[in-house]
């Protein structure tokens, strides 16, 4: 049976930043693929990982859990994880889970890049 997952993930290094740009939905099926790309970002040892969610239409808690796991790795590695570009629907789940204050969140990728 096909797994039905349609997530595509962009991965780019810009100076000290690694930018991970998922595109599509991040649900139960896609969380594993997303986690693989986030792990790759951590393995790069870049001091700052930016996850650009501008092209993510929908996310549920398995997707959020991969980001929580990634945040824990960042804290352990003393690196930064910045989320940006969330639409209202995606941001709502962070609010419901009260994670909107736990993550460093920027409105856009430009804002995330401009962060000191």
């Amino acid at each position, binding site marked *: 049976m096909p797994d039905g997952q349609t997530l595509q993930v962009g991965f780019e290094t810009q100076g000290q930043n690694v930018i991970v740009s998922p595109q599509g939905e991040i649900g139960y099926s896609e969380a594993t693929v997303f986690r693989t790309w986030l792990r790759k970002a951590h393995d790069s040892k870049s001091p700052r990982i930016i996850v650009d969610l501008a092209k993510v239409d929908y996310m549920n808690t398995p997707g959020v*859990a991969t980001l929580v796991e990634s945040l824990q790795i960042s804290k352990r590695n003393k690196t930064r994880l910045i989320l940006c570009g969330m639409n209202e629907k995606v941001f709502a789940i962070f609010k419901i889970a009260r994670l909107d204050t736990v993550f460093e969140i920027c409105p856009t990728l430009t804002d995330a890049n401009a962060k000191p």
Partner: protein
Amino acid sequence: MTSPDDMKGAHVRMELLSSPIYTSGARDFVQAVTRRLGFAELDCNQIALAVDEALCNIMRHGYENKPDQPIWLAVWPVEAAGEANGIQIVIEDLARQIEPAMIKGRELHDVKPGGLGVHVIKEVMDKVTYEKRPEGGMRLTMIKHQRPAPADGSVQDRCEGGKGCHA
């Protein structure tokens, strides 16, 4: 596989296999129905999210990722004084039974992956009940009432037959 007897009065019933492929279809269906029932757009999104989380939990924990097990979903409008003012959604399965009291979301101050789905369901819906089905498996009943219209009569967040709504 026939659907459970207690779902026979439902306005809509759906049977799906426990494969993640089908969660988006169930979510879209619930979102479309809630829109037609007149829920505000934010509530349409969040009710669909609650259904998605419930299905994920059944697939992941109940059926332990087996993709070919049955799940039933049924929907009823909730009426008060002859008018629809909410929705009742029942989801049943044949997965392993657990004590309903054991189904809890994790403490939110404890930031760690996992355990968020139940919290989201309870936060989003007005009433959430887990039960063991006598014939095996679990039953989840969720009710959401529509919020009263704003006092100024504005309808900017309300879906009128899908017009102006964004999925």
